[in-house]
C-alpha cells in the first residue's frame, strides 16, 4: 500500500508501479515491462552490464553514495570462489522509510535488479537481509520469490538461458549496526553483528569469505530501468556525477510527509514547500536533516539555494545519505533533538570499539542532564569535544554517524544550549512533538 499522495513533481522510475492494482504480483510486473531488462541483460556481456551501470551514474542509495558500477567492477571475475549478491534491506537509518515501499509495492523489481547484478558478476545466489522489524516484508518478499521460482524467473536454467540463481531472505534481529555492510555479512553468516576490518572489502572477501556485491534495495531497484532504457537515459534524470532519481522520505514538521521519488538535484526549498506542502502550521524552518539522522544538520539559511544531490550536500559539509529528510520547525528544541539522536546511537552502538561504545553513552548522559536543566557552560564544549574525539576514530561509521549531527548542532545552535543554562526550563517545551523515527 501507499502511505501518501504522490506529488506532481515526482519522476516515477522506481516507483512507476506504485498504486497499480496488485503491484506486488508477478502478473502486474510482467504486464509493465517486468523482466524486460533481465532478458536484455542475458544478451549482454558482464562487462557491458557493468559499463551500462557506470554510464548511469548510479550511486549507492544506502547512504555512502559510492558509484554502483565501480563497486561491481571490483569483484574479481576470475576468482574460483562462488560469488554472492547481498541486498541490504536493513533499513534502520532514522528518517528513512523508502526500501520498505519498494519491497512492499514492487518486490519483483528488486528480484530483477538482483538477477542482473548476478549476471554482471557471475553470481548464482543472493540474500536479502531484511531488518527484523520488517517482518511483514519478509512475507511479501518470500511470496514474490516463490512466485518468481514457480514462473521460472529464479532457480535453475532461468528462461532457458542456462543461468541459475537462488535467492533467499534473511532476517536481522534488530540491530542498526547490521545495516553496516560488513556487520550485515557477519550477521548473515550467523555471527554477532559487529563490523569487520576493511580492507578487504566485501567485493573481494564478503559473505562466507567469497566475493560479494552488496547494495541497498533502492540501488538494485534502479538497475532494471538502467538496463531497459539505457544508462544514459537514467543519468540524464539527475545531475552530473549522480544519475537518476532518489526516493526521498519527508518527515518531521511538514504538512505532507511521505516518500517521493524526486530527480537528483531537486531544490530543497521547493521540495519543502511544493512537494511536502510547507511547514506544518505555517511555522518557519529551523533545521533540516538531508539524509537520515547521521547527517550533519543544516540551518534554514543553509537550505536556501541548496539542491538534493551528493555534491551539493558535500559542499555544505553534510550528506545526501539515505534520503531520510527530517524537517524541524522553529519550535524545536535542538538540545532535545541532539539528545533524541544520541539516545538512538547509544542504544545502537554495537560496543565493538571504545570511542563509539563509551562516547555515545557519555554524550547521551550529558545531553540528558543538560536538557534537564542541570547543565553547566563547560558542558557545551565538552559535548562538542567528545563528539570530535569520536569522529573519524571509530571502527565503523556508526561513531561518525553519532558524532556528526552532534557536532553540527553544537556548532550551529550554540545559543540554544546557552538558553538551557542556569536551570532555565526548556524554552521550546511546547514543541515536544518532534516527529523523528
Amino acid at each position: 500500500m501507499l502511505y501518501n499522495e504522490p506529488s506532481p513533481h515526482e519522476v516515477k522510475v522506481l516507483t512507476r508501479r506504485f498504486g497499480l492494482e496488485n503491484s506486488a504480483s508477478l502478473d502486474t510486473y510482467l504486464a509493465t515491462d517486468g523482466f524486460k531488462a533481465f532478458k536484455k541483460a542475458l544478451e549482454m556481456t558482464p562487462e557491458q552490464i557493468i559499463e551500462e551501470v557506470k554510464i548511469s551514474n548510479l550511486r549507492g542509495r544506502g547512504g555512502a553514495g559510492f558509484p554502483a558500477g565501480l563497486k561491481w567492477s571490483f569483484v574479481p571475475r576470475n576468482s574460483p570462489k562462488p560469488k554472492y549478491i547481498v541486498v541490504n534491506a536493513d533499513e534502520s537509518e532514522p528518517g528513512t522509510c523508502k526500501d520498505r515501499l519498494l519491497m512492499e509495492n514492487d518486490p519483483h523489481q528488486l528480484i530483477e535488479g538482483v538477477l542482473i547484478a548476478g549476471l554482471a558478476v557471475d553470481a548464482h545466489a543472493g540474500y536479502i537481509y531484511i531488518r527484523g522489524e520488517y517482518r511483514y516484508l519478509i512475507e511479501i518478499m518470500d511470496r514474490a520469490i516463490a512466485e518468481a521460482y514457480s514462473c521460472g524467473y529464479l532457480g535453475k536454467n532461468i528462461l532457458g538461458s542456462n543461468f541459475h540463481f537462488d535467492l533467499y531472505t534473511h532476517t536481522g534481529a534488530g540491530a542498526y549496526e547490521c545495516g553496516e555492510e560488513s556487520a550485515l555479512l557477519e550477521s548473515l553468516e550467523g555471527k554477532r553483528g559487529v563490523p569487520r576490518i576493511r580492507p578487504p572489502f566485501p567485493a573481494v572477501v564478503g559473505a562466507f569469505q567469497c566475493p560479494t556485491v552488496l547494495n541497498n534495495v533502492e540501488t538494485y531497484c534502479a538497475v532494471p530501468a538502467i538496463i531497459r532504457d539505457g544508462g544514459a537515459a537514467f543519468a540524464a534524470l539527475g545531475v552530473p556525477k549522480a544519475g537518476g532519481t532518489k526516493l526521498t522520505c519527508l518527515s518531521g514538521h511538514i504538512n505532507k510527509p511521505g516518500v517521493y521519488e524526486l530527480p537528483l538535484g531537486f531544490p530543497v526549498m521547493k521540495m519543502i514547500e511544493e512537494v511536502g506542502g510547507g511547514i506544518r502550521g505555517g511555522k518557519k524552518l529551523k533545521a533540516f536533516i538531508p539524509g537520515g539522522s547521521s547527517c550533519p544538520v543544516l540551518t534554514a539559511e543553509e537550505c536556501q539555494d541548496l539542491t538534493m544531490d551528493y555534491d551539493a550536500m558535500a559542499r555544505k559539509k553534510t550528506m545526501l545519505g539515505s534520503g531520510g529528510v527530517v524537517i524541524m520547525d522553529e519550535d524545536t528544541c535542538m538540545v532535545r533533538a541532539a539528545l533524541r539522536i544520541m539516545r538512538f546511537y547509544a542504544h545502537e552502538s554495537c560496543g565493538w570499539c571504545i570511542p563509539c561504545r563509551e562516547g555515545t553513552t557519555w554524550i547521551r548522559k550529558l545531553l540528558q542532564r543538560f536538557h534537564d536543566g542541570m547543565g553547566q557552560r563547560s558542558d557545551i564544549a565538552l559535548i562538542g569535544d567528545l563528539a570530535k574525539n569520536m569522529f573519524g576514530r571509530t571502527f565503523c561509521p556508526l561513531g561518525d554517524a553519532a558524532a556528526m549531527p552532534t557536532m553540527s548542532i553544537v556548532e550551529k545552535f550554540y545559543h540554544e544550549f546557552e538558553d538551557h543554562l542556569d536551570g532555565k526550563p526548556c524554552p521550546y517545551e511546547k514543541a515536544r512533538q518532534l516527529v523523528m523515527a
Partner: protein
Amino acid sequence: MADLVNLTIDGKPVQAPPGTLVIDAAKRAGIEVPAFCYYEGLSLQAACRMCLVEVEKMPKLMTSCTLPVAEGMVVRTETPTVAAARKSMLEFLLANHPLDCPVCDKGGECELQDMTFRYGAGESRFSENKVHKPEKQWSPVVFYDMPRCILCYRCVRICNEGMGVNALGIVNRGVVSEIAPNKQDHLECDECGMCIDICPVGALTSGAYRYHTRPWEMEHVGTICAHCADGCKTTLGVRNNQIIRGNNRDRSGINDEFLCVKGRYAFDFYNHPERLQSPLLKVDGKLEPVSWSQAIETVAKKFQQVREAGGKFAVVGSNHTSNEEDFYLQKFGRQVLGTGNIDHHRTGDVPALLDALSGKTGKLAVSADLYQRKAVLVVGADLALEHPFLSFQIRANYRHHQAHVYVVTPRPVREDAVAAVSLRDACADVFGPLESLRAKLAAEPELVIVFGDVVKGEAVRRLVDFGESLGIPVKYVALVDYSNSRGAVDMGLLPDAGGLALPEMLAAGDLDAFWVVGANPLKAGELRSRSAFVVVQDMFLTETARAADVVLPAACAYEKNGTVTNVCGEVQKLKKALGTMGTKPDLEIIGLIAREMGAAPVMGPWTAEKVFDEIRRSVRGYDIPVPVVAAGGAAQTMPVNGRIPLDGRPDLIRSARDSLFTSGTLGRYSKVLNSVVESRNNR
C-alpha cells in the same frame, strides 16, 4: 633482502617484510605504539583504537594494528593529533572504569594504568553515574569484574584461537556489552587461566591469586612446571617464602606465555597440610618423627648391613626428581649398593625411539618444531588433555602457518578441529590407518610424528621405518608423562641386564632393602618381601611411604635447583623458589646417606652443578651447552650413536593418562585441581 618494504616511521627509515603490520614494524624500530586489543599471534580486532597513527596521504588516523606496511609509506606516531587521539581513547575507557586500582589485583602491572600514566587523561570530566555490574565467579579460578573490562576481546580470542576451547563470548551490546562464559553463569573449560593472564586490566582475576598481594611485593622465579612432561616455564611469584602465583608473562621459556591449569595454579601442593616436614621412623609398627641425623644414620647402617651380608637391593626412582637426583640415585644404586635392580614407572618408549634413530641426526623434534614444521602427525594421544602445551603449539601452527595436522587416535580429540585428516584406530593397530595416510604424508614437505604409549617396543621401530620410508624429513617425539620422565630414562633409572624391573621387585619375596625415591609403586601393588627394609623419600605419606621403615621428607621441584628434561629432550633449569622447613632435596638426602656410609669419595659432591657436570661427561647425549641451560634456556640432548640397550619389556610402558586436572600423586595434593574437579562434579 630485496623484497623488504621501505617506509618511514617518525622520520626513521624502516625496512620490513611485506605484510608486516605498521605496529610491529614500529616496534622493531624501537618505537612503541600503544595498544590494548592488538596481541601478537591473535586475530586482529582494531577495537581499542589506541594504536591510531598518522599516515601521509590518508585522510583519517589509521589503526597501525591493521595496516600493512607499504612502499614509501610515511607514518607518524607522535604528532599532536595522535597524542590527542590516545588521550581521548583513554578518557573514553576510564569513563565507565571503576578506578578501583587500590584494591585491584592488577594494580602495578595494569596496562590501562601504565597507558593512562604515560598518555594522559589523568583527570576525569565525567560526572554522571557509571555503568556497574556486580562481580561474578565463573569457576574456582576465574572471576570476572565487568566494570573493569575494556572489551579488548583478548580473552575471547586466546580461548577460542589459542586454546581451541571457545568458552568465552560477548553478550549485550553497546556500553553494557560484557564477556560471558559458555554455560550462562559458569565456565566449562580447561581452566587454563590464559584469559586471566592475557587480560590487560583487572577484569579477569584468578581465584588462586586475588587479594593475596601486590605484584611488586613478590619475587619472580622462573622455573619449570612440576607436572607434565612438556616442560613449560612457570614464573612463580614468591612472597614470604610462599608461592602466590604462577604465570609466564615474561614469555621466557619454550612455552612463551602458555600455561595450563597445572602450570598456573597447581603449585599449591607444596604447602598442603599433609606435607611431610620431618623424617619418620617405624617404631613398633608406627611411624614416629625423628631427627634427620637419626634417620640418615638408620638408613645408612641398614644399607651397609644388607650390602655386607650380600643382600638384595631394589631401587625405584621418580618421574619428578631432577636429572641430577636421578643420576645420583642410579649411581648410588649401581656403585655403592652394587645392584642393577633399578627402575621407575615407565611412561613412554623413549629408548626404543633413540635406538631406532641411532646414528641419524636431526630426527628428534623440539617443542618449537610442532609450531614451525609444515605437517604434524599425532598417533594415539589426546594431546589437549595429556600434553596441553604440545596441543597449543599444533593449534598455533595451524593458525599461523596453516600446518597440515593428521590425527590417528582411538577417540575424538581436540586436534580434530584443526586436522586435515582424523582417523580413529579402533583396533589399536595404528599402522593400518597410517598406511592409508601414506600418500598424503609423503606429499608433505616435512613432518613431525608425535606418538603416545600405544606405540612401543617393536612398533616404535616400525613407526620409524614408516616415517623414513616417506622420503621427506621426519622428526619424532615419544610422549612421556611427567616433568622428568624423559630424564629418568636418560639418567638410567632402568634395570641392568638381569636386573629386576619394577613389577618383579614387588613380586620378589627375597628383597632385603627397598628404596623408593619420589614414587608410589605400592599405590596399586603390594610388596611381597615383607621383611625388606623400606626407605621412602617423598613429600607426602603416600601408600608406599606408609609401608616404609624410614620416610625422608623430600623437597619438591620448586624447592631445589637442578635440571629436568622434557618430552622433546630439552634440558631446562629448575630454580629454587622457596624452601619448606624440615625437607631436603633428594640429591642432598642421597648425598647424606652416601656420606654416612663412607661412600662420599665414590659419589662425589652433591651439588646440582657438580652432578650436572658429571652428567654432561658421562650420560650419552647430554654434552649440551651449559650457558644455554644456565641462562634459563632449553638445550636439546644430542642424538645417540650406537645401539641403546633395550630390555625388551614394552609391557612395562604404561602412560597414566592424566587428564588436565590430574597429575599422578602430585595432583591429589593440589587444592586448585581438586576444587576444579569438585566444582564440576557438583554441577
